[in-house]
Structures are given as structure tokens and as C-alpha cells.
């Protein structure tokens, strides 16, 4: 026997609807996790990534013993966390003798691991070690510029994948309208060698240039680090095709109060509120100006006038 289960509250319903697969998706959320052991570097990298991504990220602070993304069976609890938190990008930090200061960046499709790339962290410089004018500090959740330089991102398959993952990680939500004054950060990735990428986070200063386009100055605000490529796993070809599918028909926005008529063409409907004639204030309501009184007075005056005439006549 089956039972239909529906959420008991409207809030729960809204939450479920938010998680459902959609034609136009919301931004990908990021899950930040620790492995069994993390060095100071790795934990601060995870902390600072969380600070950069705040609003679109969830950070787990406990150690995870059963997560080994590259091994079979080591991804079950990762997939469970993804389902639980509705995150589709994860950053997993660990530190072992074999792979010191290790970071695994991965993406999920339908809460299953889509692709993975493992990088080592070198030359890490924390947020706190940068000194700059705090006025230009980027705001939380602002849309970043993302820049990639170096031919490695075009030729080396690992770097190509890293570029895609980093873009997905940093770009945030896809927006239609953008406030130009809100642009205040940029991520800069440079391929130094076929296995090494320099990544830094900069604040943007918009200077006057005399034209509409301002002159742009970048100030490094950190964190900055070198990413050394280690292992990677490319997505399954079938899965990739499935995940890249997009629908041609955009969801139509419902246009209210506009009809299309064969004879008359486009017809609009306008709402006119009820005309409460009875409630319209009259010009003057004071006693002296009332019509009856006015007329009465006139009448009286006439009568008096006639009466006086009569009197005069009688005299």
C-alpha cells in the first residue's frame, strides 16, 4: 500500500519546491568539508573559501572519516551530504603524508559525483596577511570577474577541467540585471606551468578615465595560493551529455491582462477601481451655504420687501 506524503507546512513545501529540478536553475551551492586530518593551511583555505562564498556555501566543521572522493565507496556519504544540503559543488580538504595540503574540488549532478579534480596548495597567503584600505573590501555575495591567463588552460586537459570547475565555483548565480556599482571583486587565475596555477582574489577600484568606461585597478586582498594539479577524474561521457542538455524553450512569463484577438488584435484590460460617488466630498457643506437656506433667505427678503412696499402703499 502506498501513502501520499505532502509537507505539513507551507514553509516545508517552499523548501521542497526550491530543491526540485527546474528549467532555469538557481545558483549552485558549495559544500565545504574536512577530511580525517587537515593541516593549518588546509583548514584556513577552507575557512577563507567559505568567507568568499558566504551566502552560497555551507561549511561542515567535523572530520569525515568515510569520505574518499576518488575511491569507490568513498563517495556515498558525500552524496548523502549533497542531498541533505542541496549542494552541487564540494570542496574537500585533507592532509596526508602522501598528499600534503590536499584539496579536492568536485561537482555533482543529480547528487552523484560528476567530476573531480585534486590540487595541492602551495605558497598560501591568508586574507589577514594583506593590508589594504578596508573601504574597497569586496562585499559579501557580489558578482565577481573571473580571469584566466595562460595557454595551459587551453591545451592541458587537467587545467581545462580546473578552469571549468573554478568558473562554476566562483561565478555564483546567473543574473540578468547587474548593478555596475556593485562590481568589487575579481578572481585571477594564471597557469604558471602545465601543472601549476596561481590563484588570487582582488578588489576592484573604479577610477575616472574621462570616458564612460572607468579605468580599473586591482588591489590584492587575498587569499592567494598556488594550486598544483594532482589526480583528476573527468565526467563520464554519457553523463556529461546528459548534464549539458538544455531546453530550447524558455519558461514563458505569464503576461497579465493582455489578450490576443483575431479581429481586434492585441487587447489590454485596465483595472478601474469602483467609483464611490457617494463618498466624493462636496465643495462646501457648511450651514450657511446650503441651498435651502439660501433660497429661504431670498424668499424671506422678497416677502419683507413686498411687505414694506405694501406698508408704504397703505401709508
Amino acid at each position, binding site marked *: *500500500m*502506498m*501513502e*501520499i*506524503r*505532502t*509537507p505539513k507546512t507551507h514553509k516545508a513545501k517552499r523548501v*521542497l*519546491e526550491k530543491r*526540485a*529540478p*527546474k*528549467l532555469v*536553475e538557481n545558483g*549552485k551551492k558549495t559544500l565545504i568539508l574536512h577530511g580525517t586530518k587537515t593541516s593549518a593551511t588546509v583548514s584556513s583555505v577552507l575557512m577563507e573559501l567559505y568567507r568568499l562564498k558566504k551566502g552560497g556555501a555551507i561549511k561542515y566543521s567535523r572530520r569525515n572519516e568515510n569520505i574518499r572522493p576518488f575511491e569507490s565507496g568513498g563517495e556515498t556519504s558525500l552524496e548523502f551530504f549533497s542531498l541533505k544540503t542541496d549542494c*552541487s559543488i564540494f570542496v574537500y580538504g585533507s592532509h596526508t603524508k602522501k598528499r600534503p595540503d590536499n584539496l579536492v574540488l568536485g561537482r555533482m*549532478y543529480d547528487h552523484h559525483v560528476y567530476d573531480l579534480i585534486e590540487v595541492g596548495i602551495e605558497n598560501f597567503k591568508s586574507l589577514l596577511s594583506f593590508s589594504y584600505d578596508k573601504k574597497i573590501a569586496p562585499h559579501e555575495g557580489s*558578482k*565577481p*570577474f*573571473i*580571469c*584566466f*591567463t*595562460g*595557454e595551459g*588552460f*587551453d591545451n592541458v586537459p587537467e587545467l581545462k577541467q580546473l*578552469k*571549468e570547475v573554478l*568558473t*562554476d565555483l566562483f*561565478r555564483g548565480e546567473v*543574473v*540578468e*540585471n*547587474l*548593478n*555596475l*556599482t*556593485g*562590481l568589487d571583486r*575579481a578572481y*585571477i587565475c*594564471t597557469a*604558471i606551468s602545465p601543472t601549476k596555477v*596561481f590563484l*588570487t582574489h582582488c578588489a*576592484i577600484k573604479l577610477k575616472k578615465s574621462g570616458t*564612460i*568606461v*572607468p579605468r*580599473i*585597478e*586591482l588591489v*590584492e586582498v587575498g587569499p592567494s595560493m598556488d594550486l598544483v594539479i594532482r589526480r583528476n577524474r573527468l565526467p563520464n561521457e554519457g553523463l*556529461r551529455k546528459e*548534464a*549539458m*542538455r538544455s531546453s530550447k524553450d524558455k519558461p514563458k512569463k505569464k503576461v497579465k491582462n493582455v489578450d490576443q484577438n483575431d479581429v481586434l488584435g492585441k487587447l489590454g484590460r485596465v483595472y478601474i477601481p469602483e467609483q464611490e460617488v457617494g463618498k466624493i466630498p462636496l465643495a462646501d457643506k457648511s450651514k450657511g451655504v446650503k441651498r435651502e437656506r439660501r433660497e429661504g433667505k431670498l424668499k424671506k427678503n422678497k416677502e419683507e420687501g413686498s411687505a414694506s412696499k405694501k406698508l408704504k402703499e397703505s401709508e
Partner: protein
Amino acid sequence: MDTEMDQIYQIDVGNLLAFNPNHRFPSAPSSREELVKECVTEGTKLVQAIADTLFNFPSTETVDGPLVQLPPPTTKLPREKHLPMPKPPTKWEEFALKKGIQKRKKDKIVYDETTDQFKRRHGYDRVNDDNDIPIIEAKASDEPGEDPFAKRLDDKKKRVGKQEKNRLQNLKTAAKAGALPSHVQLAVTALPISGTKTQPQKIGKDALGDVAGLAATSTASGGKFDKKLPGEKPPKKQGKHHKYLPVVPRYGVVDEEKEQTNKVLGKLLSKHSHEILNVGKAINMYNDKKEKKKSGRSDKLKAKKDITKKKPYANKAN
């Protein structure tokens, strides 16, 4: 100038993304600081290139600043979840399509003739509300002794139940197509959703008592010499389940044993005793046996043939 820049850089304004695939360090940077400086200046160029296109878009002024409409992103990135599946038509929708029945909107408010008023179609104080009728006229088809009011209620309940059943069926087909509405979950009542763990069932008082009784009587002595716990009741069934009927009946009572045997004999010897026999089953059994016999024989024959063939061959070789 702009076209040259575009050729050098790959720009995706929708993502505010720029890529310079042609950059090469003029000379290997000697120190870390030099490298960082070089990277940042290169990045500045890229950001400037995006800004050049971005700030030239038509903008609308708002209180917070100029708003620009971004084009859709050009870099293809994988989706987070699969595309939503189209919802399969319900039984009714299928039927309506076949018959050409079209949806039409009904007014919320309907004229009620009995009260000479406009009333709601559904809900409180609605049109033609059955509950408002105090008297139901008797019909010739009415069954005597049946409460028409109770019957009406019962019918309504049945209709609601049927609709619920139909709804469940439609949801099941939708679930098969992967198009279940996001807020609906279909759960098997007897089994957990995960399917791995068995759902802990609540054990009732009776079941607990049964288990306790079983445990208490499962010693060698049948629990005779065990210490009783405070509040423990004596086990429900104690030995002797088979009751033998007395051979000699008590005075004035019908002989039960005789009656029992009589009953069985009567069944067998009665006029319609052939109806007890399941003829179909009997034929099947008979046929089965026959076939088994046949196949057994053929096996034996085959085996013999093989032996006879081999023997002369072996002789020849010798």
C-alpha cells in the same frame, strides 16, 4: 581596436569571464613578488576588457546605481539537476483528449433557484448543499429500514475515497515517469523509504505477552521451577493442545466421537460425493505421472543406445 582585443581574449560577459589563451611570461619571473605583479597586471587587462563591453551596454539609472542587462552566459557548464520531466496525463486527461472534452472555467458564484440568491459553488453556504435539505422524499426504489441520510453520507465518503484512489494511481504513473510534483512523496506504508533498514514495528501488549510466555516456558521443565518475576502472569497456554473425545459418552449427551466420524463418512458417501473430487486436479495429476513414466523410459533407452554403439567401436580398435 575592439576587434583586436576580442581576438586576443575570449570574453563571456554573462559570467563576467575573460580568458587570455596567448599569454606567455616574457622572462621567467625571478621572485614570487614579480610573478604576482605580472599576474595581477595581466588580470587587470582582462577585467578592463570585460568592463569595456559591460559599461557600454545601455543602462537604466536607479537609486542604487546604473543597472545593466547581461546577456546569457556563453560558457557551457553542466546542470545541477536533470531537466524537469514532462508530467504524464492523468486518466481523466487521457479520456478527455480521446473524447474531445475541453476544459472550461466555471464561475465561482452560481445562482441558486431555491433561495433566489447567488451563492458560492463550493464550500460554506454553497449552492444545492445536500446538508441543507431537511426532508428526503421516499422513492419506490428505497429499501425499507435504510436511513437515507446515512446513505447519502456513506455515498459521499465512497466517492471521496474513490477519488483519492484515482489520485494515488495518477501519482504513481507520474512517479514512474519521474515527474512527481516536488512536494509530494510516495511512501510505502509497510516498508521504509530507504529500503535498507527494516522499519521498527511497534510491538503491542499482546505480542509482548506471547513472547514473554514463550521465553518463560522454553526451559527443560517448561518453566515449572523458574522464579517468577513480580507481576508476571502465568503463561497462556500450558501443554495439552489435543483434546481426545471421550469414548463413552456422558449420560444424556450425544456421542461426539460418533458424530464426528459420521460427518466425514456422510461427506464421502453422499449423493453428490463426486463434487468433492476436484476432477481437473485429478486429471492433471494423472497426466503428470504418465509423463514422468514416459520420460523415464526414454532416458533409459538413450543410455542403452550409447552403450551399444560404443562397444563395437571399442572392439574394432582392439
